């Protein structure tokens, strides 16, 4: 998924940073008393900042459209799943959930079709994070009391998916989970 390239990118950047700092440190250690240091620092600083600015701008324009708020925005979902989180369980249902007496049901979702999760919380903030068969985080949204967040996703592979709570919600936060299947 997405995490591996992120880790590689980070390690590469961290490695480059380490090399640059080490190189500069060594250059100081080796320097003779008379050496003048960096030539034209102002110019170099300017280019350094400009290049950094350009890289960051490219990164912004490339990544912003992939933000979850715009994904599958112009399609009608095939299925709606209502989610109500409460310390320390998730209720999932295809019908609307009554906050006074919430109940859930087993959920089975179609593969390759658009599903919309309508996520809310009945008490504190919770996280609604979907993990795939190999326990990778594939998407998430927060469950906030008083609001409904709509998370859209198309599951490609059939199988069992787990939901973990990803916003700290109290003493049994680490045990708060649910699951559903995709056929």
């Amino acid at each position: 998924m997405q995490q591996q390239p992120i880790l590689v990118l980070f390690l590469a950047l961290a490695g480059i940073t380490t090399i640059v700092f080490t190189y500069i440190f060594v250059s100081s250690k080796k320097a003779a008393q008379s050496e003048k240091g960096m030539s034209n620092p102002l110019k170099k600083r300017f280019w350094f900042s400009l290049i950094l600015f350009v890289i960051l701008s490219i990164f912004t324009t490339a990544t912003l459209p992939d933000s979850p708020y715009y994904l599958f925005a112009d399609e009608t979902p095939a299925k709606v799943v209502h989610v109500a989180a409460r310390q320390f369980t998730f209720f999932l249902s295809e019908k609307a959930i009554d906050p006074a007496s919430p109940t859930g049901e087993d959920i089975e979702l179609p593969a390759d079709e658009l599903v919309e999760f309508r996520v809310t919380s009945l008490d504190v903030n919770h996280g609604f994070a979907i993990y795939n068969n190999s326990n990778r985080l594939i998407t998430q949204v927060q469950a906030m009391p008083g609001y409904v967040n709509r998370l859209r996703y198309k599951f490609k592979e059939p199988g069992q998916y787990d939901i973990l709570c990803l916003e700290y919600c109290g003493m049994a936060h680490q045990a708060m989970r649910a699951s559903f299947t995709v056929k």
Partner: protein
Amino acid sequence: MFKNIVFTIITIGFCIKGNAQTVSAEVKEERNIYEKIYDAPLNVAGKQQLSLHELYNEKPLLLALVFTRCSGVCNPFLLQLKENLQFRTKDNSFNVLVLSFDPRDSIKDMNLLAKKFDLENNKQWFFAVTDSITKLNQSISFNPVWDSVINQYDHDALLVGINSEGYITKKLIGIRRGHDMDLLIASVNNVFSPTYRLPSKNLLFSCFNYDPKTGKNKLGLGLIFIALPAVLTVLMLIFISYFVKHKRPEIEETS
């Protein structure tokens, strides 16, 4: 200073209490989403017999359910709807269908209702009755209850969004602020908005977001609160700077 803030907040707290709605509305609003509405035959004022699908195929619909003898919520509800939409005169991406759920209502009654609201010549608005109201009610989970004591229906003020394929995209129960109307209109046009508020929780935001006189969205109080710390800091900076000015050593400045 902070005493004032606490006071303001607590006052707001009470004003919110006043207009809170029944809890069940939030569940009702979630029913039947993305289901198809019953394709009822309609008798539309000033028009021939029609099927509901002919209307929504032409343009997405906002469906309002009322009855003409209502002494309760229907009038303010329609008035509010009309005012809300007045500010969107350029937006003709949808039509409005006002449908009676009272079998006693005739097409004449609906005509009068349209006149009363000065909407009989408005191309965007339709007033209609149907003879299959029960089936239609079922398809949108709308349950008016006859109360023989007050001789009135006990019912919600329900607004249903229907897209051009006849799917129910969103429901609003109760008289709602402009922002919810925006979401409703977006939904019938299949525009995705990643979030919405639950109707029962009218808190800080909604109290100030909506101005009933203009039907416009105001800057939310919440945003003001978020900006408050920065504003306070700047004010304090200027304040302190002014008061310690005389202590500053004279430094010559060309500017």
